[in-house]
């Protein structure tokens, strides 16, 4: 095995890094195909570092001072003396976490352990970027004024960024497949997109957290317009007033629901975005004509006025 097989893995999404190092020598770090285009050679710039130690069997997590957020499912966030404790659990491994990482208050440095035989470690092979660990860490770091993760399909078309927002079943993967057939088009992700400010203007970034279409790309594009997906019998673009736009974007975003500052940041960020780019409802049929409808509205504007009473 080559000596560099034991190097740390550095994930880079939307210009933000996450480096994972094994706490012991002889552990090889690997990742799935979706994350590979997002791997960087070295940690640089705004990069968090997590050191993971192998654990022979699950054990109770460190005593925390306060429960901050319990999803009631896989992950929990607790407050400790020094920062935050993120734990991941599954009924398969009993009540104790299969992964526990204690972070500083800025989520810049983390130290933790993961169970051998669990999702992240099998013998001397470690899979650090298994859902939802990396996504939760990015979510927490984005909430510190860096950007917002949204439930969306992101398109780069002839250098322009188009965001198609939607919860499960709204048609993100279907739309991604339709857009992928167009020339000069890159689908940045069919499920998760990061929005960050780039010189005061919103920019969208691809992520490895793909949806059913399995499309991801580490590219990015300046955001031109946002569309909230809504399947309908015919294609139609409807303008939304900024207040309704922010509400609709918030329910399709992943803000840090556990901290007031994180929520405030997300609302303010999306409110500013709604002032800068048009946010529209896209009623569409899952056919190529839906793509043409979006392209036509990009330059000509929304053909129809807002409906009375915007609601999801």
């Amino acid at each position: 095995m080559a000596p560099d097989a034991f190097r740390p893995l550095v994930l880079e999404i939307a210009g933000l890094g996450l480096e994972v190092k094994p706490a012991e020598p002889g552990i090889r770090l690997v990742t799935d195909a979706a994350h590979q285009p997002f791997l960087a050679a070295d940690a640089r710039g705004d990069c968090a570092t997590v050191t993971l130690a192998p654990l022979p069997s699950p054990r109770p997590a460190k005593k925390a001072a306060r429960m901050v957020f319990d999803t009631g499912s896989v992950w929990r966030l607790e407050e400790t003396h020094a920062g935050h404790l993120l734990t991941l659990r599954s009924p398969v491994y009993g009540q104790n976490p299969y992964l526990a990482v204690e972070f500083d208050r800025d989520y810049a440095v983390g130290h933790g352990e993961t169970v051998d035989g669990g999702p992240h470690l099998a013998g001397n092979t470690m899979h650090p970027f298994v859902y939802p660990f990396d996504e939760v860490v990015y979510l927490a770091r984005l909430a510190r004024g860096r950007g917002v993760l949204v439930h969306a399909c992101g398109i780069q078309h002839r250098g322009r960024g188009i965001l198609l927002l939607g919860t499960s079943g709204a048609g993100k993967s279907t739309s991604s497949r339709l857009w992928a057939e167009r020339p000069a088009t890159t689908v940045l992700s069919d499920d998760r997109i990061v929005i960050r400010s780039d010189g005061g203007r919103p920019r969208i970034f691809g992520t490895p957290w793909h949806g059913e279409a399995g499309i991801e790309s580490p590219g990015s594009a300046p955001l031109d317009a946002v569309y909230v997906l809504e399947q309908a019998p015919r294609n139609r673009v409807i303008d939304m007033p900024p207040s309704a736009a922010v509400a609709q974007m918030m329910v399709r975003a992943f803000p840090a629901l556990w901290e007031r500052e994180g929520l405030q940041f997300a609302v303010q960020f999306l409110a500013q975005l709604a002032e800068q780019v048009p946010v529209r409802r896209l009623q569409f049929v899952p056919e190529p004509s839906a793509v043409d409808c979006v392209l036509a509205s990009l330059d000509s504007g929304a053909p129809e006025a807002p409906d009375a009473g915007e609601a999801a």
Partner: protein
Amino acid sequence: MSPKPERPDPSARRAYQPPHLTRVHLVPDEAVLASCKTATTQGPLGASAKCTGIPALCSHSGS
């Protein structure tokens, strides 16, 4: 002589919108990353299996 301050163009100002409540529908499991995303996403079952497989590690799935 100091230059006159420019007046904002009245036509450029947005019309006043009275405050109003908007009811939106939130999908809690999706909002907090509590569900495994897809059958093809590597999840808590590990690299060799998918999180929506059998046995299921998560009680929910969504994308």
